[in-house]
């Protein structure tokens, strides 16, 4: 952990690993899309519309996963004061916001033909919308200061407070009656998805995770370089 926290070392490792992750992400997403949109069968209830799942569900998983990363990085920054943790949190936020927007939009596109409505204010949909606003609020807060370092503490506290929303989103479908159906994969008995549909879903999920890693590394390197340039200007 501390070994990686050295920015110069991080930059060197990131440079070598990044193209590989990006390549693997493209492969996984291409394979997942082809499998999901062409090979996999239509659903017995939902017909062809079920194919929205292969984008919607992985995007929704990413929205929660990235927020957890954001909160963890913020916690590390608050406790150990690693500047790299702040950089990681800043770099992750817009990617998470994009995935959340994607989950919301594809969810609306799926809800219209299946449920008969674009949007309802049930517990799942509302808590995900709050997650989207948390991302936007975090991004606005950390960028609201002339000195980027000053926003870091306030942003980290906001990210940590918002983490309470993550279990609420996850369990909203179990705790309350919602229009949104409960989880298909994380349940006590076997998964409720046919293997022919599970394969493209997991391929897409892996692809999105790798995409996140690749973009995170690019963004972290950019932010680090921007900080270094800023520091050089200060010296002059």
């Amino acid at each position: 952990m501390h070994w990686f926290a050295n920015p110069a070392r991080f930059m060197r490792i990131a440079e070598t690993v990044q193209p590989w992750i990006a390549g693997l992400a493209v492969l996984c997403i291409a394979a997942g899309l082809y499998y999901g949109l062409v090979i996999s069968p239509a659903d017995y209830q939902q017909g062809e519309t079920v194919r929205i799942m292969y984008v919607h569900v992985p995007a929704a998983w990413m929205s929660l996963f990235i927020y957890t990363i954001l909160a963890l990085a913020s916690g590390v920054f608050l406790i150990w004061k690693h500047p790299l943790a702040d950089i990681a949190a800043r770099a992750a936020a817009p990617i998470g916001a994009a995935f959340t927007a994607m989950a919301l939009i594809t969810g609306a596109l799926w809800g219209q033909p299946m449920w008969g409505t674009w949007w309802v204010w049930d517990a799942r949909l509302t808590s995900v919308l709050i997650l989207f606003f948390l991302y936007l609020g975090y991004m606005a807060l950390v960028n609201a200061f002339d000195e980027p370092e000053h926003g870091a503490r306030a942003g980290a506290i906001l990210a940590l407070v918002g983490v309470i929303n993550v279990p609420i989103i996850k369990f909203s479908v179990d705790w309350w009656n919602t229009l949104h159906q409960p989880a298909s994969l994380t349940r006590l008995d076997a998964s409720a998805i046919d293997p022919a549909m599970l394969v493209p879903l997991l391929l897409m999920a892996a692809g999105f995770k790798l995409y996140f890693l690749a973009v995170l590394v690019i963004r972290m390197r950019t932010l680090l370089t921007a900080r270094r340039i800023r520091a050089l200007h200060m010296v002059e």
Partner: protein
Amino acid sequence: MTPKRRRLSIVVIGLVMLGTSAALVLTAFGDNLVFFFSPTDLQAKTVAPEQRIRIGGLVEQGSLEKSKDGLVANFRVTDLQNVIPVTFKGILPDLFREGQGIVAEGRLVKGSFIASEVLAKHDETYMPKEVADALKKSGKWKGAAQP
């Protein structure tokens, strides 16, 4: 106690307090966070005649009757314990069928539900049609979608 450990304990205590308060708030909201009531919930509740509510459950098998012009649908919603008759004028969603879970919004008038909107609910099961047919054939079908 080093500053690091102090900051760690502040963060941990803060998160625990935040979790507790969130749990208390969500418990206090109770019914307000529920998107719909089941027919059994309605029996236990008193609902004002003009109050708009949502009910949810399965469309009872064999209960759907459409008017001659096809605009008005009468059916019964069940949670397998209690039943409530529903009247709806309008276009039903694609997924609407007998045995399917639905959520209807409207008012309760003299024990029957006048719906202004009907939404279809689907469950978390996904499978190809052939698999569903095979399961039904072999008798391993788990039955209708759950509400």
